[in-house]
């Protein structure tokens, strides 16, 4: 069962929520919709589910147009960000509910409910009501209800956002495991790049209602088609520096310049944006061609066992992602080292021209979008 969105647009009260989205989801695939808040993740999922109707365009299931088909007749299931269960029914009845509607025999229902509950570790709570359970258990119940029927499309709308960190890691792993054996299409919406990478599969980047890139997660991570994609799929966001390329060297500002190296030799002279990942900048040089930049510390924020260091010089700001805890006082002058062979190059319109390790021409990048 494959799902195809063809030029799907949704406009609500004159506001464009989804703008001309084209997307094909393969059977058995795990798809992550990555986008910021209000990027249209939920809107897109609701269109896939048939809860909303597209203003324009078609939704195809296995090549059959299902655009106007009510949600009851599509074989889908959905898990919401909030823990949505029927509060006045027991967990057992909650999980059994889609099967009852499908007129499955009582014995079969009992078997499948117990199986699913066991997979999600909620079998001891089957006789309780959802509101008597913890948040994680409530969400497990909702997931069990989504997984108990053989839905051809399973939608997860940021299901782990309201859970604590540990539980999130654990459930994320479980979701991935549970769906491996299935032939259904799974769609998982998330705001976190790390989550998309951890889940693997296919990542689709959504930005302001548009699908900007879609492909295998690691591909999309390594070769973003434009600045939006690169910023979206990087936490903290990728550093961008405007620079000038001449015949022989790259100049960021009067003091920071370096000779054109092998990786970016193909660039014509002109203005470009150069992107460098926060984790690639270091406090010590790793390579002979690392570029030394003198900067002032603005802020060192400690996040777990990592430090996000914000530094600046007269022309640009940088964020460094350093492992370990580093404490620096504001306005301490330090030197940081940019790896010149790990630079992304974008033209002034934001299109990616070069990614580290692979040469990109404009057209090749476009292919990834539609592929």
């Amino acid at each position, binding site marked *: 069962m494959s799902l195809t969105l063809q030029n799907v647009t949704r406009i609500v009260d004159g506001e464009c929520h989804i703008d001309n989205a084209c997307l094909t989801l393969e059977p058995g695939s795990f798809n992550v919709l990555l986008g910021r808040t209000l990027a249209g993740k939920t809107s897109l999922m609701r269109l896939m*589910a048939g*809860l909303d109707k597209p203003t324009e365009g078609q939704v195809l299931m296995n090549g059959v147009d299902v655009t106007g088909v*009510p*949600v*009851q007749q599509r074989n*889908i*299931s*959905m898990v*919401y960000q*909030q823990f*949505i269960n*029927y*509060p*006045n029914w027991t967990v057992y009845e909650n999980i059994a*509910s*889609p099967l009852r*509607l*499908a007129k499955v025999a009582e014995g079969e229902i009992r078997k499948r409910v117990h199986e699913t509950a066991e997979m999600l570790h909620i079998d001891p709570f089957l006789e309780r009501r959802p509101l008597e359970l913890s948040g994680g258990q409530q969400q497990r119940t*909702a997931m069990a*209800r989504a997984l108990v029927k053989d839905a051809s499309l399973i939608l997860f709308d940021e299901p782990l956002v309201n859970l604590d960190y540990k539980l999130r890691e654990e459930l994320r792993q479980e979701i991935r495991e549970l769906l491996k054996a299935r032939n259904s299409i799974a769609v998982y919406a998330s705001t976190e790049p790390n989550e998309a990478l951890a889940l693997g599969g296919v990542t689709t980047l959504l930005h302001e209602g548009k699908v900007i890139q879609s492909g295998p997660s690691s591909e999309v991570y390594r070769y973003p088609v434009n600045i939006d994609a690169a910023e979206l799929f990087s936490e903290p966001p990728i550093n961008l520096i405007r620079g000038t390329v001449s015949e022989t060297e790259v100049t960021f500002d009067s003091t920071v310049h370096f000779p054109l190296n092998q990786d970016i030799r193909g660039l014509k002279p002109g203005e470009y944006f150069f992107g460098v990942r926060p984790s690639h900048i270091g406090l010590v040089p790793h390579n002979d061609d690392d570029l030394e930049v003198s900067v002032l510390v603005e802020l060192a924020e400690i996040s777990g066992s990592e430090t996000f260091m914000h530094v600046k010089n007269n022309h640009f700001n940088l964020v460094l992602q350093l492992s370990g805890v580093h404490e620096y006082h504001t306005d301490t002058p330090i030197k940081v080292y940019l790896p010149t062979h790990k630079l992304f190059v974008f033209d002034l319109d934001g299109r990616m021209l070069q990614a580290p390790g692979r040469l990109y021409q404009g057209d090749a990048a476009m292919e990834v979008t539609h592929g």
Partner: protein
Amino acid sequence: MTSMTQNTASQTAGAGSTQQPKRFVLPANAKRRVNTQRRKNIGITAYILFVLVPIYWLLNMSFKSNEEILGGLTLWPQNFTLENYQVIFSDPSWYMGYVNSMTYVSLNVIITLMVALPAAYAFSRYKFTGDKHLFFWLLTNRMAPPAVFLLPFFQLYSSVGLFDTHLAVALAHCLFNVPLAVWILEGFMSGVPREIDETAYIDGYKFHTFFLKIFLPLIRSGIGVTAFFCFMFSWVELLLARTLTSVEAKPIAAIMTRTVGATGIDWGVLAAAGVLTIIPGLLVIWFVRNHVAKGFALGRV
């Protein structure tokens, strides 16, 4: 707030008395708090007694004979009698009043809920042109005094043959009860996340099975509170009920106001009728007592 101060005060007292039983002295402010608490309790007791005096007096009268009532001040019945109640339960012109009242009140509650449930669902779930204005306009329906509608109702019902039927009163009361019911129910329904509806559709429920099997049980306390408010209005409303009926559907409240016989006023029977009129209200309040506060906030708590 009050219970909190009380708790802290009693805790301090309890902890102190077990640890150092002799030297323990209440701190000055704790003492003051206990005193304030005591004063508050006295105040509330006095107030409740004051409010209950007329009801006690009604009960008192209903167990006395007319002679005793008119004879002089007695704080409780000297010759306890159930005769007054016997009169009411044996005379159809009395007890039919209760039957009539209950009939049109129940009818009204049923009609109101049947109309208000779908309306409230629409207001809470769908967006349509003018929905907010319409919602507010509903409440403005309650701003006119019932007397305004007397003449149109009377004339209309007389000409379509509804006059002096239970349905006439029930429908007339709907004019006031439906808007209130829609307001209360909308609040309760909006407290149920929309995603529950969608989850049900995704599970495969058709709208009506979802509404009856999942949604209504979720807002059952709201329905209870709404029914209570409709009951309360319809049960105590006198003007419309009296004007739109003559014999067949005459409510108890109307009968009570007209019982001046040739022998003068039958005080004892009237008092008994009064007591019996309070009882249904008490019963209904007893059933919804835990939800009434939520209902007064129109479900928005």
